[in-house]
Every structure is written in C-alpha cells, then in structure tokens.
C-alpha cells in the first residue's frame, strides 16, 4: 500500500523536470494585469545557478495582494479577462534565464507588515520547490522576517526599483545565494 490508512505525513515533492513547458505555461500566465495599463509595473529578473550561469528551465510563480493590501479570492488566473485582479501568476524563464511579470505594486496586508510578493521557484535540477519573498524597496526596518536574516544576506529578499518597476534576481546557489524560506509544519 502506497500510504497507510490515516497516515497524514506530507507527500514528498519532486523536481518539475525538463518537460513542463508544454503543460504549465499558458497564454497570459505572467500578466496579472495587462502590460501598459496605467498602474502596471514589471517584476522581472534572472535566475542563476551556483556557477552564476542563467537557468533557462526554471518556472516562477508569484502571489500577492493588490495595491490596497486586499488579498484576491477571485478565480480567473488561467483565463484572464483583463479586468479581474487574481493576485497570482506564473512565468517560465527564457533562454537567458530571464523571467518577467506584469503586475501592480502590492500594498501592506496589515498594520506594521511590509508589502512583499510571495515567490515560488521550480526548475529542472531543483528537487523540490523553493519559497522566497520579494520585498519592495523602501523602509523595511520594522519587518520581522528581514530582521531575522543576517544583514549581509537581507538584500537578496529586496527587489530593486528600475524604470518599469522592480528587478528581483534569484541566485539558487553560491555568491549572493537567495534566502529561501522554510515554514512551520513543513
């Protein structure tokens, strides 16, 4: 028997493998809002491996609040209508390891909470998904999580402002390795 009755141990993850491209990406996956809309910003970056080389077969997902800090519970992420903000998106990296989302700037979800975009990373060669956060640049002094991270690694959790929005590079391993998160009960 694969799982004994009553066994509630979490199922193990496995790598997304090399062949997810024809299954998981879909038209409009990375466009939480249409690019070019007045409040649209770009969240983009490059995923790199331990040698500093770009990872062309990674998949990122983001999940975020809207600009007022509200958390969407609207369906429609897979068939976007261009008007409903669902808060979730998916983007595969291209041949240069680059990913790009069109989204809006998230607001704080509660008093004293710094706004961030929650990020999941999948890739060929990565045996289980990784979680991280992309904080927005600004005053982050009061944030509990950032305060718990060693100062020399804190910057890996903070996006950098650029002309269209935010740049958030991910380093899976090595110099400047991104801080990846583990949650209780995992």
């Amino acid at each position, binding site marked *: 028997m*694969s*799982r004994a009755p009553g066994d509630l141990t979490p199922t193990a*993850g496995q790598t997304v493998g090399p*062949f997810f491209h024809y299954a998981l990406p879909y038209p409009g996956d990375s466009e939480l809002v249409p690019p070019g809309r007045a409040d649209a910003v770009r969240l983009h970056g490059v995923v790199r491996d*331990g040698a500093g080389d770009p990872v062309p077969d990674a998949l990122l997902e983001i999940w975020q609040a809207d600009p007022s800090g509200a958390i969407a519970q609207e369906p429609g992420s897979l068939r976007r209508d261009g008007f409903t903000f669902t808060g979730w998106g998916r983007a595969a990296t291209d041949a240069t390891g680059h990913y790009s989302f069109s989204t809006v700037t998230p607001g704080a979800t*509660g008093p004293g909470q710094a706004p961030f975009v929650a990020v999941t990373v999948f890739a060929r060669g990565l045996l289980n998904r990784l979680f991280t956060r992309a904080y927005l640049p600004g005053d982050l002094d009061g944030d509990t*999580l950032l305060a718990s991270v060693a100062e020399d690694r804190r910057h890996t959790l903070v996006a950098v402002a650029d002309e269209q929005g935010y740049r958030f590079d991910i380093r899976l391993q090595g110099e400047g390795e991104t801080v990846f998160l583990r949650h*209780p009960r995992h």
Partner: protein
Amino acid sequence: MVTQAEMDGEIAAIGAAYESAVSAGGAEETQPRLDYPPYRSSLLRHPTKDLHHADPEGVELWAPAFGHRDVGTLEADLTIQHGGEPIGERTVVTGRVLDGDGRPVRRQLVEIWQANAGGRYIHKRDQHPAAIDPNFTGVGRCLTDDDGTYRFTTIKPGPYPWKNHRNAWRPAHIHFSMFGTEFTQRMVTQMYFPGDPLFALDPIYQSIVDPRARERLVATYDHDITQHEWATGYRWDIVLTGAHRTLMEPEEEHA
C-alpha cells in the same frame, strides 16, 4: 559518464548513511534532499545555506482561487483531446488531496503532464526516438470536488531514457502540480506506478532517501476504479504540508 553500477553505489551509500542516522535517533526525512549528487542537474541548483525559518503572513496564509471559469470539465480526460483514440493502456487515476490535518482541499486546481505510452513527451527538448502519438498530448487539469477528490482519465505513460548517467531510464510517472488553501502548501511532484523495476535505479525517485516517504509517491492499483472493457484504475492520495491559518488567527486576536 558513470555506469548504472557506479550510480547504484552512490545511491546505496547515501541510503545506508541515512538508515544508520535514523537508527541512531536521527529525524525521518519526508521530503527529497535538495542536495542529492546522484541527480547531476542538482549539483549547481540546490541552495547551500539552510532554509530560513519564516512564520507565514499576509498572502502566504491564503492561496489563489480557481474555478470553472479556469478549468473545463473535459480537461480531466487526456484521451479525448484529438480526433482519435490514443495508443496505450487507458487508465483512470483518482484520489484525494488532503491538508496536513486530514481536511479535504476543496475546489482547488490540480494539473498533470506526462509522456505517452512510448515514453515520449510533446516537447521540443525531448529527443527520445519513440513515436509521437497524434492523439495524445499528455496535459490535463481538473478541480478537486467538495470531498477533495480529483480524477483523470489518461494513458499509462512509458518509461523514458535521460542523460544523467549511462543507460539512465526514468520509471513511468505522471507529473502532478497541486495548490492547497495556503501559498506555503504549493507542491509539484511525480506519481509512480506500483512494482516498477526502475525504482531502485532512479536518482530522482531515490532523492527521497526515506523508503516510506518514497512509497507514498506510488499509486495503488484499485480494481474498483478499473472499468469493464474500458480502463484500468489507480488510486493515489496526496497530503499537503500543514496549514497555518487556523493556528495563526487565534494568536492575532490576542495580539
């Protein structure tokens, strides 16, 4: 390129070290190792620093919602996406998605993808010289029902070769992607079929070093799911990692 025998030695050494650590009182590992050298593509792609403890907050305590606007009911049948019948063993794969407290994960998205009966993916990077089946793409989606049950009709995939080591073959598997009720429960994994002779040889399957944790990825043949003169049937239940929202909310009330 190392031989399968050398690969078997690497896998066995890690397995033996884990077994002796557990018998000395070490923790049971229920997830794959990220740092698992027998899977060569992981060498430069695993973090070297410990994962950093984070109490989930804000959006992390919620998951995106999907509905019938996102997923059509026919998308759960991978055998009717083209003009004719696909080649291979028609099979029904069904089970429940539960959270770590045993609650069904209701009306949530499940995505699958897989090779065809000959072990070939419809993917430009797949160079395996096995036939493409014009009647089979190998991609499906569904929403769980109120009981957390998902159900797909598909074709049993074949094993396929890959370049990890000399004569490396993946055991037959279906890739699964699941969402829970919270962002932190997001998972992607692979479901296997019982009794596959390639299990012991496969570094991706063996990257889950605990034998019981590996076996949880293996579906069970279920003759009650099998359909008369139509399809074989397999059952595979999925348990996501523990939820936090119910734990965090009472704390917030006191804050």
